[in-house]
C-alpha cells in the first residue's frame, strides 16, 4: 500500500512494527483478515484504538464548536474584537503547532529507524512546541481577561462571546497540556525501553489530532472575529 512518497516507507515495519513472532501479517491465500486470526486493518490494535478515540474526541469538539456556531448565528451582536496583534499571535501559535506536528512525524520516523536518541529529541521538541503554544495562549487569555472578557461578559457585545471563546480554547488547551504530559511520559518510557515505536506513533496520532482541532478553532474563533477595518 505504500508508495515511494510515504515518509515512513522502507523505514517502517508493516503495520508499525513489533508484531510478535508467529503472528501472521499477511493472510493465507484465499482468505482475508476479516476471516479472523489477524489484523484486518494491518495496524497494531493500539493504533486502531487511538484512531477510534480520536474520532470520538473529534465529535466532542465538533459538538462544542456547533454550539458556538448555533449561538453565534442566533446572536445579533457578536463582537469582532481581535486586533492585528491578537491575530498575529494566533497565527504564530498556529505555526508553532504545525511545526511541532512535523517534529512529531520526525520522532515517529526516528523511532521506526530505531534511533532512540533522535526519537527522544524530537519528542521533546514536540512537547516544547506544545509548551510554547500553551504559554502564548495563556498570555493571550490574560490579556483578554485584563480587557474585561469573562465567560459571562465582555466590553463589546453579547456575553456569549466570552463563553464560547473560553469553552473552545479552554478545551483545546486542556488537550494540548495533556498531550505535552503524554509525550514527555512516552519520551521517558521510550528512552528506558519501556515502550515501543508503536506507542510513539500512537502518541503522535493524538498530537496531530490536537493540531487538527486547532486548524478549525483558529479560523472559526479568531479569524471570524478579527477586527476588520
Amino acid at each position, binding site marked *: 500500500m505504500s508508495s515511494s512518497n510515504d515518509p515512513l516507507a522502507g523505514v517502517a515495519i508493516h503495520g508499525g512494527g*513489533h508484531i510478535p513472532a508467529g503472528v501472521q501479517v499477511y493472510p493465507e491465500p484465499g482468505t482475508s483478515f476479516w476471516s479472523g486470526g489477524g489484523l484486518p486493518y494491518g495496524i497494531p490494535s493500539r493504533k486502531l484504538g487511538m484512531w477510534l478515540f480520536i474520532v470520538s474526541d473529534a465529535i466532542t469538539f465538533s*459538538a462544542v464548536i456547533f*454550539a458556538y456556531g448555533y449561538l453565534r448565528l442566533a446572536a445579533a451582536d457578536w463582537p469582532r474584537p481581535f486586533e492585528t496583534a491578537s491575530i498575529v499571535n494566533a497565527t504564530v501559535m498556529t505555526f508553532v503547532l504545525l511545526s511541532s506536528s512535523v517534529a512529531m512525524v520526525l520522532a515517529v520516523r526516528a523511532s521506526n529507524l530505531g534511533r532512540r536518541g533522535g526519537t527522544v529529541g524530537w519528542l521533546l521538541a514536540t512537547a516544547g512546541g506544545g509548551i510554547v503554544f500553551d504559554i502564548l495562549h495563556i498570555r493571550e487569555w490574560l490579556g483578554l481577561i485584563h480587557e474585561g472578557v469573562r465567560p*459571562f461578559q465582555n466590553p463589546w457585545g*453579547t456575553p456569549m462571546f466570552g463563553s464560547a471563546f473560553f469553552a473552545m480554547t479552554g*478545551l483545546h488547551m486542556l488537550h494540548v497540556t495533556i498531550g505535552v504530559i503524554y509525550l514527555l511520559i512516552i519520551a521517558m518510557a521510550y528512552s528506558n525501553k519501556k515502550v515501543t515505536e508503536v506507542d510513539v506513533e500512537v502518541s503522535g496520532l493524538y498530537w496531530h489530532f490536537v493540531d487538527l482541532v486547532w486548524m478549525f478553532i483558529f479560523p472559526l474563533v479568531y479569524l471570524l472575529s478579527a477586527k476588520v477595518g
Partner: protein
Amino acid sequence: MSDTSAAAHHHTAPTSFIRKYIFSLDHKVIGIQYYFLAIFSVLIGMVLSWLVRIHLVWPQLHIWGLEKLSPAGAPGGVMTPEYYLSLLTLHGTLMVFFVLTTAPQAGFGNYALPIQIGAEDMAFPWLNMLSFWTTFVGLCCLVATLFVKDGPPISGWTAYPPLSAVGSDAGPGQGMGQNLWAVSIAIFCVGSLLGALNFIVTTVDLRAKGMSLMRMPLTCWAWLITAILSLLSFAVLFAACILLFLDRNAGTSFFLPAGLLVNEKLQPHSGGSPLLWQHLFWFFGHPEVYIAIVPGFGVISHILSTFSRKPVLGYKVIVACLLGIGFLSFMVWGHHMFLSGMSPYSGFLFSIPTLIITIPATIVSLLWLGTIFGGKLRFTTSMMFALGFISVFVTGGLGGMFLAQPSLDIFLHGTYFVVGHFHMVMGVAAIFGMFAGTYYWFPKMFGRMMNETMGKIHFWFTFVGVYCIFMPMHFIGLEGNPRRYSQFVNAFIQPLMPVHKFMTIAALSTGIIQFLFFFNLFWSIFKGPKAPNNPWESTSLEWTVPSPPPFDNFAGVHPVVNHGAYEYGEENDGKDYVMQTDPPTRAVTG
C-alpha cells in the same frame, strides 16, 4: 492476535485477592463487576420507583425512613412535590445509565465477547479495568446526590435547561445535586467511551482464526454495533455536560436566554438557547436507547436459536437490520422534541426516519418468530425470557409508531403514553434481555446452575406483572394523564385513580418477586449444582471451555473456528448441533 507487548497483556494468573476480584484485568471479572454494579443500581432504582408510585396514589402516606433521608424533602415522611421530582430524576438517571447502559453491553459483553470470538481477553485489559472503575466513580457521584443537603436534582434524567442550568435559585437539588449529576454523567461518558473503543478493537482484531465476521454469534454483532453507537454518541453528551457545567458554575449562557426570572430572581445570563441542550442531549439520547436495546437483540437471537435447536432465520438479514437501526438512530432524535418549539420542518424531517426505523426492528422480530417456528423448543427460563422479550418489545415498540407522528405526539407527548412506551421497551424488554442473559450465562460465569423452578416462577410473575404495570399507562395516556406530576388533582384524572392504584400494586408485587430472582442468583453462586461445560448444548465458543473458564479462557490453546454460530438441527454424531470449533464437515458452512 493483536501486538502483545508485555505491558499490554498479562500472561500469568493473578494471585492476590485484590488483583483477582477488585482491580482485575480479567474481562470476566470486569464483566461480573459491571453486572453487580447494575444490580446495585437497579435495586436503588426499583425502590425509587416504588416510592414514586406509592406517592402518586397515597400522597399523604408517611413513608418510613424518608424523613431521615431528607428532612426538607419529606417532612414527616410525606414527600414534597419537589422531592417527588428528585426521586424520579434519580430513578431515571440510574436506570438508563447505570443499569441499561452497563449490564447488557459492559456486563455481558465484557464477559462473553472475548470468549465468543476466541480471544484470551479484551484488546486493552488495563483500559477495561479503568472503564469499570471510572463508571463506579460516576455511580458514587450520582448516589451521593441522595445524601447532599438538598437532595437529587429535580430536572429529570433529561436535565433540561433553564431548570438544570440556573443553579440553586431554581429549586431544591438544583445546586449541589445538579452539579453532582453533571459530573457523574460526564464521568460515565468517559467510562463508556473507553469501553466502546475496547469492544470495537477487540471484535476487529482479536477474532480467532476462522472466526469471520459472518460466523460471529449475533451477540458479538450486537455488542459491536452498540459500541460504535456509544463511541459516536457519548461524545456529544460529554460536550453537552461540559457546557451545562460551565453554565452552572462559570456564568456562561450556552443554554440560558436573557431576562429569565426564576423564583422572582432575575438571572444574569443572556444569549443562550435551551433548545440547544435538547438538540445535543437527544442527539445522544436517541442512539442511547438503541445502545440499551441492541445488546438485548443479540442475546435474544442467540438464545432463541439455542433453545429452538434451529439456526437463526436470516442471520445476514438480522446483521443488516442491526446496522440499519444503528445508522438510522442518528437521524431520528428530533422525535423527542416535536413539542419543543423547534422548526416544524425539522419535525417533519425527523418523523420520516423514525417511522422507517420501525422496519428493521419489525423484520428482526419476524425473523425471531421464524427462528422458533418449527423448532424443538426447550423451555428453559432463559428461553422463556427470550420469548417474553419478543412479546414486550413488540408491544412497547407499537406505541412508538404512534409517537413517531408529530400530529399524534402533540397530544401524547408528556403523557403516560410515553411513559408506558419507553418502560415497555427499556424497562421491560431490555431487562428481559438481561434476565435471559443471566439465566443463560450464569452456569458459565459461576460454574453452577440456577434453580429452574424459581426461574420459571420469576418469569411468569414478572411477565404478567409488567403488563399490569405498563399496559394501562398507554390508555391513561390517551386519556390525557400527564407525566412527571407528583399528584393528580385535576377532575378529569380522578376517574383514572383506580388504574393508578392498580399499577402501583402491580409495581410493588412485581418488584417483590424480583427478590426471588436475587435469592436464586446469590444462592446459586454458592450452593447451586455444579455446571457442566455446555449445559444448554449451545454452539458458541464459550461452551467449549470449562465452567467457569480458566483465567485466559482457552488454557493457552488458540481455537480455530470452522463453523458458523447457529448450526443446530444437524445430525452430528448423535448430537443435534455442531460446535463452532468442531472439525470442518464436507460442506463447510460460512
